[in-house]
């Protein structure tokens, strides 16, 4: 038996949070295991015998990442990993459940591929944490990130690799895999936005004249926002992808606002958005269809996609039918775009509230990381990435529940699709890295002189 020795070292009082994280990750894996068993009992009247295997494989990934965090980012936010684990696991269970409804076994369905992608995505997150030992390095690659982002965005337009699915050109075919590079472009562009704006924020926020109580920027400072706007419109025109277009523009305006603290940018951004939206509505038939579908999903002679999703949600009611007891396959894309409707049907309003709260916590932890970050680049990066998650959830869930017109976007962590999973796990890895930097006690930073030499200190604002 050892007794605690009194100590004068204050850093002992800073809790890394790794134990909390471990407990919560195990808890999340437990919930996923229960959900998996639930599906098995509901659909086959039997305890799935492969539960140890499948949950074991799945659980190994976040636990391994937990190990990497103990090694490379001891002070990272302890809630981010459990939240991502739970969302990813629930998504896997629902995808498996839809495989079952389609008569596919555990190994031949979409779920096994999604599980493989989960492993790959978590490995990417671990690699990110190992390679990027300080997020500030990324600032050096501001314009590289821009180039990478643009290339990724435009890749699907190339003739050979580009692929059109369901009327949108968003995919790239590499061997047997279909990738959606737009998802990864999201990260590259956030790095670019953060890096670019942290350098130019003074010019953008201080210069300009006042008009109607707003500090208007100079004409030449309007350049970047116009470029971002043009890019969004380009995505809309070339790839017919309303969702990504909205996401990129929203992301840019948000980061611009955080960087400059100027409300005028939001007003200008909104004005540009409205102009773009009206223009798109007038020019493109598919945009008009989306709007009429939004206003009256039950009107005759149009797609019943929204209507079917609403009926699925209504079928679930407050408490849901229970996992495996509903009919999610009646809805189109029940495992990808409409996976939230599948959850709403089987877990009910209560379950959907739970999922939304998980996202809310994830975003809140991300924004808290942004506030805690000690320098501008980290703040912008964390705020941008967190807000992306919030915006993406809002655009897709809002589309399903008729808050806004429906646009196709993946639901972070839940939807089937490897690129989305990859991107969102890397986002979590970067948030973990920034939060580790933010929460690390001063004493430990001094104990790591190589890091301080490699990355000159910045003044935090």
């Amino acid at each position: 038996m050892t007794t605690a020795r009194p100590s004068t070292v204050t850093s002992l009082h800073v809790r890394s949070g790794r134990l909390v994280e471990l407990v919560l990750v195990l808890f999340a894996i437990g919930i996923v295991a229960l959900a998996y068993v639930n599906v098995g009992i509901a659909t086959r009247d039997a305890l799935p015998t492969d539960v140890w295997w499948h949950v074991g494989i799945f659980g190994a990934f976040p636990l391994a990442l937990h190990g990497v965090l103990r090694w490379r980012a001891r002070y990272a936010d302890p809630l981010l990993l459990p939240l991502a684990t739970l969302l990813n696991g629930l998504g896997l269970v629902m995808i498996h459940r839809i495989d079952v409804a389609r008569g596919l076994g555990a190994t031949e369905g979409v779920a096994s591929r999604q599980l493989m992608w989960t492993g790959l995505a978590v490995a990417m997150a671990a690699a990110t944490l190992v390679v990027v030992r300080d997020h500030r390095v990324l600032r050096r690659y501001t314009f590289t990130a821009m180039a990478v982002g643009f290339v990724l965005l435009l890749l699907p337009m190339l003739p050979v690799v580009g692929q059109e699915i369901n009327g949108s050109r968003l995919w790239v075919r590499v061997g047997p895999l279909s990738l959606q590079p737009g998802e990864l472009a999201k990260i590259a562009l956030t790095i670019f936005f953060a890096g670019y704006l942290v350098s130019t924020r003074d010019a953008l926020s201080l210069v300009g004249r006042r008009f109607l109580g707003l500090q208007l920027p100079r004409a030449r400072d309007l350049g970047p926002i116009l470029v971002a706007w043009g890019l969004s419109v380009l995505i809309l025109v070339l790839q017919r992808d309303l969702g990504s277009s909205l996401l990129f523009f929203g992301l840019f305006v948000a980061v611009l606002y955080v960087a400059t603290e100027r409300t005028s940018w939001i007003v200008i951004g909104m004005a540009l958005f409205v102009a773009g939206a009206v223009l798109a509505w007038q020019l493109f038939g598919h945009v008009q269809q989306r709007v009429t579908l939004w206003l009256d999903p039950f009107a005759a002679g149009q797609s019943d996609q929204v209507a079917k999703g609403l009926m699925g949600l209504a079928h679930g009611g407050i408490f849901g039918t229970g996992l495996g007891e509903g009919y999610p396959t009646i809805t189109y894309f029940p495992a990808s775009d409409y996976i939230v409707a599948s959850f709403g049907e089987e877990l009910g309003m209560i379950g959907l509230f739970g999922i939304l709260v998980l996202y809310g916590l994830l975003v809140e932890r991300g924004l808290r990381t942004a506030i805690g970050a000690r320098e501008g680049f980290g703040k912008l990066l964390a705020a941008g990435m967190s807000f992306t998650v919030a915006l993406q959830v809002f655009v897709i869930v809002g589309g399903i529940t008729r808050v806004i017109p429906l646009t196709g976007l993946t639901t972070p962590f839940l939807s089937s699709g490897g690129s989305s999973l990859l991107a969102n796990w890397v986002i979590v890895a970067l948030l973990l890295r920034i939060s580790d930097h933010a929460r690390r006690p001063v004493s430990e930073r001094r104990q790591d002189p190589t890091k301080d030499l490699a990355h000159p200190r910045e003044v935090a604002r």
Partner: protein
Amino acid sequence: MNTPIRRLAVVAMLMFAALLLSTTWIQFVQAEDLRETPGNRRTLIEGYSRDRGAILVDGTAVARSERTDDELEWIRRYDQATRYAHVTGYYSFTYGAGLGLERARNAVLAGTDDSLFYQRVTDLLTGEPPAGASLEITIDPDVQAAAQQALGDRRGAAVAVDPRTGAILAMVSSPSFDPNTLSSHQLAAVDEAFVALTEDPARPLVNRALAGDLYPPGSTYKLVVAAAALESGDFQPDSELEGGLTYTLPGTTTELPNFGGAACDPQDRPTLAESVRVSCNTSFAWLAGELGADALREQSQDFGFDQDLQVPMTVTPSTYPEAPDDAQLALTGIGQHEVRVTPLQVAMISAAIANEGVVMEPYLVQTVRNSDLEVIEETGPGQLSRAVSGSTATALRDMMVSAVESGSGQAAALPGVAVAGKTGTAEFGTEGAAHGWFTGFAPADDPQIALAVVVESATDDWSGETGGVVAAPVARAMFEAGVQR
């Protein structure tokens, strides 16, 4: 930069709040309306996931639910499908509950009816899977089979009721259809079958017995006219009527002949009883003029015309024309000119005469039992109206008996059983085509079954197919099957 980040957090929270609101709106506030939206497949599947009650004839199911392995869990099966198609109707995933009892008693069969509320609560508490109630119906399988076989491929309908209770013993409409083709889970094939059935010019989905296009009753309507005459007190069975070779319709030069141009009586003065026996046109045209349209309409209504009946399927009301002129009035006396009836109504006329003048309310469902076989609804005989006095009924019965013994309806006669009946041949359209009718009851002195049969002329080229030739044999087959000796 922290202030804008905090504001961004507020914006994000507002976005999530909007999603929580919209989810609540859809899953709680609007949920019921959305579930009831027509074409909601989930609601349809839910209906299938319940064990829908059977429809039983004399202990044998003519419609029942069978478990399947597919998503819909239950499939509706119809044994003796075409024989009972218009009684059962169909239960289709795509087209819902249609026609017959499937539609008329849908809520009871599905188990959603208010009368099954306690059953549902008990099922919920005991963990029993929810199940619908079953219907035991009044059809006599022998009479139903006889009617269907005797009608064969010809278009028409046959209805039989128990005159003492109003219980429907047989209800056949021809051509029929196979409801299994609509209850199948092969949805593409179901669509095909449904389109074929609805586009078929013979209209097999129409129940001609009670909800088809109404038929002109022809000479069977003479029973109503004779009843009105006797009830007026001005005529007795032996009252002599004016009935020559032809009758000139009042206000026109049109000569109405007797059937086949024959005389009704050597002195052209047939009695009322004789006019019924030989089905004399001229004397009944004259009699209608004597009685007037109001008297005929009232007598018709006493037999059940203009009534909305649910047996439980809705019966199209039979009608007597609004305001006929004198020529038209004369024609109504022989069941022409816009007198329109259902076969069930004609059967009710015979039934009333058989039942000493009292019309019983027709019904098809005898007993409703919940899944625990407890009786939750039992139909007893109910009086609809008194059509004629007992003595008028007796007089009419005697006339109908002689019509079968030695008159127009001899093809319905049955050895050893006194049959009362009346034939009819109803012309329609401009020329040529006619429907053959027979209505009557048996045994005449102790009536057990009253019926009406109509056989549509298959072509416009009518070649002497009178009711006595085409409809009476069908009636005979039904009597043979239905009379207990």
